[in-house]
């Protein structure tokens, strides 16, 4: 999106979300943004407030993306529930293609890992997830084809989404024949590099009742945080998505059997398989078999990443999970057209960041249950 800078993407998305909610900018008294790589500021959220000329009483910049977006959603709900503010605008964007050169973005990602105990060994970001995939494959017999099925499902859904970056359908063989990146991961097991932004408006359920569009309700949220560096993880095959999910289910008084559609963090295909297990959609070790035979595609038992995910819709970095949230909202409003999950009433969104380090889960419903 070379026609809009990173900052313009934040404020454009914010304007669209406010219009969708039927609110003006002065109805916002809380603001959350994420840091931008392309256009960084020391006080980023304050900079966006300044740009929009709004004067919030609650104003926070998320330092990262992935699971942190869900953490921010959780905190926003708490801030509203405790009266810190009434109406929070969460806006996240970045410009990783036009704002940073592709080489610069890849170079920025090369700074992942502990400076003394990991980076000297030369691990690119896919290598960290390849270590996770290899361990899962060794423990449970997960296959290349099963990981590829995740990429195929996301691409199928992206093909039905005009906003998606990659819309040409792919088959399992296309994933297996794509360039090897870091064994066992191929190019098509890896997510995209993108420009993009998304915003949501959160307020108390009673206040949203008379909004022009039907609101979607946050029924439960939970987090789990286990480590920063992969070499310090207690397990490569079970993540803190387990605790995060359990906490969200407990708050919502719902379980995996109640979920109609799931939007799961898919920076790399093996992550989805582990999240499906840790979030209770199948037993530990069965995630590979779970994704076979179109089970996570539209029309399957549990449609996953109906917008196309980070693998095929877009991945501008920190804002990635925001598109999972906006898709869940659209699904629950029945506004997804050809990719609508029939009778979707409850949606789960999961994000993770770092290297399966920091997890957040949210459960949304189209009714207050």
């Amino acid at each position: 999106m070379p026609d809009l800078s990173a900052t313009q993407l934040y404020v454009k998305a914010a304007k669209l979300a406010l219009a969708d909610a039927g609110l003006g900018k002065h109805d916002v008294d809380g603001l959350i943004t994420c840091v931008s790589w392309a256009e960084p500021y020391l006080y980023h959220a304050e900079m966006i407030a300044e740009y929009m000329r709004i004067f919030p009483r609650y104003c926070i910049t998320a330092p990262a993306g992935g699971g942190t977006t869900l953490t921010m959603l959780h905190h926003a709900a708490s801030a509203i529930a405790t009266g810190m503010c009434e109406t929070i605008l969460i806006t996240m964007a970045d410009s990783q293609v036009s704002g940073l050169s592709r080489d610069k973005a890849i170079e920025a990602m090369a700074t992942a890992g502990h400076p003394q105990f990991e980076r000297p060994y030369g691990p690119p970001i896919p290598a960290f997830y390849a270590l996770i995939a290899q361990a899962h494959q060794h423990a449970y017999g997960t296959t290349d084809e099963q990981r590829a099925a995740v990429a195929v499902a996301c691409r199928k859904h992206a093909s039905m989404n005009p906003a998606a970056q990659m819309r040409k359908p792919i088959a399992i063989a296309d994933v297996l024949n794509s360039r090897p990146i870091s064994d066992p991961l191929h190019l098509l097991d890896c997510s995209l590099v993108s420009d993009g932004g998304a915003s949501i408006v959160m307020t108390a359920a009673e206040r949203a009742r008379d909004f022009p569009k039907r609101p979607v309700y946050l029924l439960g949220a939970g987090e789990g945080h286990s480590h920063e560096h992969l070499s310090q993880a207690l397990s490569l095959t079970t993540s803190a998505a387990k605790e995060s999910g359990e906490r969200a289910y407990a708050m919502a008084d719902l379980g995996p059997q109640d979920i109609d559609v799931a939007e799961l963090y898919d920076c790399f295909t093996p992550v989805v398989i582990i999240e499906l297990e840790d979030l209770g959609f199948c037993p530990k070790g069965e995630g590979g078999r779970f994704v076979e035979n179109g089970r996570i595609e539209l029309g399957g038992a549990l449609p996953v990443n109906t917008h196309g995910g980070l693998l095929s819709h877009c991945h501008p970095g920190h804002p990635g999970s925001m598109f999972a949230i906006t898709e869940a909202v659209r699904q629950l409003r029945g506004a997804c057209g050809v990719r609508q999950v029939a009778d979707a009433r409850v949606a789960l969104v999961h994000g993770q960041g770092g290297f399966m380090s920091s997890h957040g889960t949210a459960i949304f419903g189209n009714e207050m249950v």
Partner: protein
Amino acid sequence: MAETHGKPVPVPTRETLPFWEGCRRGELMIQRCGECRHFQFFPRLYCSRCMSERVEWVRASGGAEVSSFTIVRRPVSAAFAADTPYVVALVRLDEGPTMMTNIVGCSPESVRIGMAVEAVFERLTDEISLPQFRPRSG
């Protein structure tokens, strides 16, 4: 972090200096708790199990087992291009802690999870030698 030929070279901190001094001598140093005998790596001010500050540096055997590995086909930076493909692995030391490392001294394709390995030290600068692992001999 300093660089040599574009590769990142660790810069020791007060907390990690005994580890890097050990590497320079060809010894893999980790911490052991003086109270509960827990071994730990990365280095910490106190024991990550019981919080005792009586942590002491001890020489690890250097033996380990591969807990996971990947053959990197697309290097992290141009500095690693000549080494590509190379193996990035997580190894579990005989004493318990896990380290990230490279597996060297064998073909990347021959590396397996569960493989027994031992520490070797690659001299990067006068100050810094990097611990790597190779298949255990004998």
